[in-house]
């Protein structure tokens, strides 16, 4: 239920104030303001609420207050604003309901959909959306039905899906013929939005990690810098463009901005603070910024063991981050300080978020005091392994035979149950663990599904690895063959064996009703035939 109140004789809103501790509400409210060319402010803490009253623009009396009905910083802020002589129209809502309500008020049929887990995607699209009258919807598989109903009723002239989104979101929105922007890399995606914004001599530079008034205004496009360094493709773009001036928001990016200046020779200004002119002397205070969710890549190496029984070096990688990462390692092995081997990955390996993966590198290692010097490149996408982990570790010696053996007998999709099944059989003589990973093409994009926990399967037993996912007929056509990777082994913590292959996708649906119907029809036909024969005999 959305609460709406308004002061009497309120004219058109002249500025927007957002009172919420949820970044999505702040984003949606600031985006609404930018969409309508209104100035906006947001409360950043309960202590900030009374201060904001003194610095709001008094020449803009009509305020549109967006107050969260769940997590406002200050309860009942409308009365505070009215006491400060502002005329207030208030909306009390949050989350999806607020997003939809403001989308309705925007009176547009153009929308951009981003996943609400990726704050930097929301920041990236904000200026283009404000300038070109697209309203941004923050969608996921839980709320997509609500957005679908809204879009269906509202009508859609243009729909863009930007960055990674849940499969269910993309499937649900297919009827609106969406355009997809997802180059697989946040910087590439952002560059695409900057190009679409159009030629501009001045640009905002940020890293997509916070909301700030100027970023949301739409007056200039937003270009992402890396937090510590500027990606090469960004430098190249700036060199080839008409950009003469960049404005960095916030102090943390000063070093990266300086690098951009050195590489491209554009002028760079740093917007670093604010002050409230009321007389006397004062400090320059920090800008009002609100952080958005960001996912850190976080790869570590848990252990390195040499298994003399299998003659392999087992390296256990730990993904402590909240998104999946690809990695590729180069491992130098030393015996009492002298290098005896160099091992590694030829292709990137995927480790799911908050998960571990043990990779076995075949090698016969002899020596004492074995140590390893590991260099692991990792990143969000295989072609952008931008982070580096370097670690020196002792190698533990173990002797752990592994007689496990599995095969994959088939891949099927149950349309009625929305389940993808990988049929796995333990063909070895010992109980063993298996963990399946599937790569699907969904509207042209690769998606990897991984089991959260390995299955323990007894010898000779078959079991299905089940993934609950919705595949449309289009997705089914995109995947005549499905790539499956099975990591398995006798030890749950070391699934060192790998089975990989491409398997035909078999479609199954619930045949019970059609079978019953066919049986009834057949029975009816047989009944009619028998009855006719009886009549003939009696005739």
């Amino acid at each position, binding site marked *: 239920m959305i609460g709406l109140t308004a002061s009497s004789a309120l004219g058109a809103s002249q500025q927007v104030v957002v009172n919420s501790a949820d970044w999505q509400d702040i984003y949606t409210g600031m985006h609404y303001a930018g969409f309508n060319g209104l*100035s906006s402010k947001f409360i950043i803490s309960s202590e900030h609420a009374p201060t904001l009253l*003194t*610095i709001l*623009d*008094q*020449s803009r009396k009509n305020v549109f207050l967006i107050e969260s009905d769940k997590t406002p910083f200050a309860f009942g802020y409308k009365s505070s604003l009215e006491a400060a002589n502002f005329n207030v129209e208030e909306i009390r809502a949050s989350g999806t309901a607020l997003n939809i309500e403001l989308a309705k008020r925007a009176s547009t049929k153009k929308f951009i959909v981003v996943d609400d887990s990726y704050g930097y995607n929301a920041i990236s699209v904000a200026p283009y959306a404000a300038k070109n009258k697209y309203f941004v919807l923050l969608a996921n598989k839980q709320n997509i039905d609500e957005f679908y109903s809204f879009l269906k009723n509202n009508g859609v002239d243009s729909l863009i899906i930007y960055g990674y989104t849940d499969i269910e979101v993309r499937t649900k929105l297919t009827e609106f013929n969406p355009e997809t922007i997802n180059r697989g890399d946040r910087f590439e995606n952002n560059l695409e939005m900057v190009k679409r914004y159009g030629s501009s*001599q*001045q640009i*905002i530079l940020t890293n997509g990690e916070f909301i700030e*008034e*100027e970023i949301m*205004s739409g*007056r*200039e496009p937003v270009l992402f810098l890396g937090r*510590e*360094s500027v990606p090469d493709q960004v430098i190249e773009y700036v060199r080839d463009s008409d950009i*003469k*001036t960049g*404005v*960095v928001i916030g102090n943390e990016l*000063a*070093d990266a*901005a*300086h690098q951009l*200046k050195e590489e491209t020779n554009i*002028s*760079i*200004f*740093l*917007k*670093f*603070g*604010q*002050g*409230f*002119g*009321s*007389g*006397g*002397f*004062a*400090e*320059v*205070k920090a*800008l009002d910024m609100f952080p958005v969710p960001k996912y850190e890549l976080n790869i570590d190496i848990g252990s390195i063991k040499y298994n003399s029984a299998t003659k392999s070096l087992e390296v256990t990688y730990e993904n402590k981050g909240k998104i999946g990462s690809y990695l590729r390692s180069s491992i130098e092995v030393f015996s009492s300080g002298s290098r005896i081997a160099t091992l590694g990955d030829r292709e990137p390996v995927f480790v799911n978020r908050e998960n571990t993966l043990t990779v076995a590198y075949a090698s016969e290692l002899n020596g004492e005091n074995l140590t390893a010097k590991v260099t692991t490149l990792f990143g969000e996408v295989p072609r952008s392994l*931008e*982070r*580096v982990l*370097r670690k020196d570790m002792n190698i533990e010696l173990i002797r752990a035979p592994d007689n496990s053996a599995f095969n994959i007998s088939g891949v099927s999709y149950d349309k009625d149950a929305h389940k993808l099944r990988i049929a796995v059989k333990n063909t070895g003589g010992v109980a063993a663990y298996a963990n399946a990973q599937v790569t699907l093409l969904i509207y042209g994009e690769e998606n990897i599904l991984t089991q959260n926990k390995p299955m323990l399967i007894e010898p000779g037993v078959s079991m299905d690895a089940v993934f609950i996912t919705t595949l449309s007929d289009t997705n089914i056509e995109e995947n005549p063959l499905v790539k499956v990777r099975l990591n398995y082994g006798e030890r749950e913590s070391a699934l060192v064996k790998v089975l990989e292959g491409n398997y035909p996708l078999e479609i199954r649906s619930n045949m019970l009703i059609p079978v019953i119907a066919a049986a009834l029809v057949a029975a009816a036909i047989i009944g009619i035939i028998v009855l006719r024969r009886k009549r003939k005999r009696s005739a």
Partner: protein
Amino acid sequence: MERRKVLSVVILLLAILLIIDTASAATPGGATVGAGGTSTGSASTPQTNTSQGGYITELNITDATQITSRWQGYYGNVTGGSIVLKDSSNTFYSWSANLANSGYVYATTNTGTPAWSSVAAVTTITDLDTASYWNFLSKSDNISNTYNTTGSITVAGTTVSNTAKAPTLHSNFNDYVIQDNSASDMSEIIWVAAINNDKQNFKSGLSDYELLVPVHATTRTYYFYLEII
């Protein structure tokens, strides 16, 4: 009798002058620095003199110090960054650097970002005094009397010549006024402090800049920028 009448009139006149002088003090004396670190000074204490019949008293009205309510001062330091030689995650060598050495600190009430490549000089400073945005008019501490000379600065690689300038009291810092030609109201005005590293400030400490900005009738937010060089 005649002399007493004249004396009474003179005393009355002097008393009237005293009352007017006391009433025109801009702010009461004594200040409290609260949260936010804003401070202001004390005005000089108005003097009193007791009048008594039958006496002629010499009373000199000397200059009184008043606290301005039309200006705000900002001061501080521009701390340095670093220049490094590194790969994606490891530093090979690092030099400390003042990324804004000898640049400027800018302040504007423009809620949008100024178009830095199209800034220009403010040559008719009196226009700012008459603008209703500040309404300083002919006050002693108006903008014309503060930014009362001219100078040149370089912004985004472009020299802005003969723009209004205000040397600060200690002459260690210079402030300027420029304008953003792309804006359409008085928020286009940009107040500029030239950075002069580690110079004595008004408190006898060390600062890199001092900046004087006018105060509006209603509180406005100033946004601060500096150019990375």
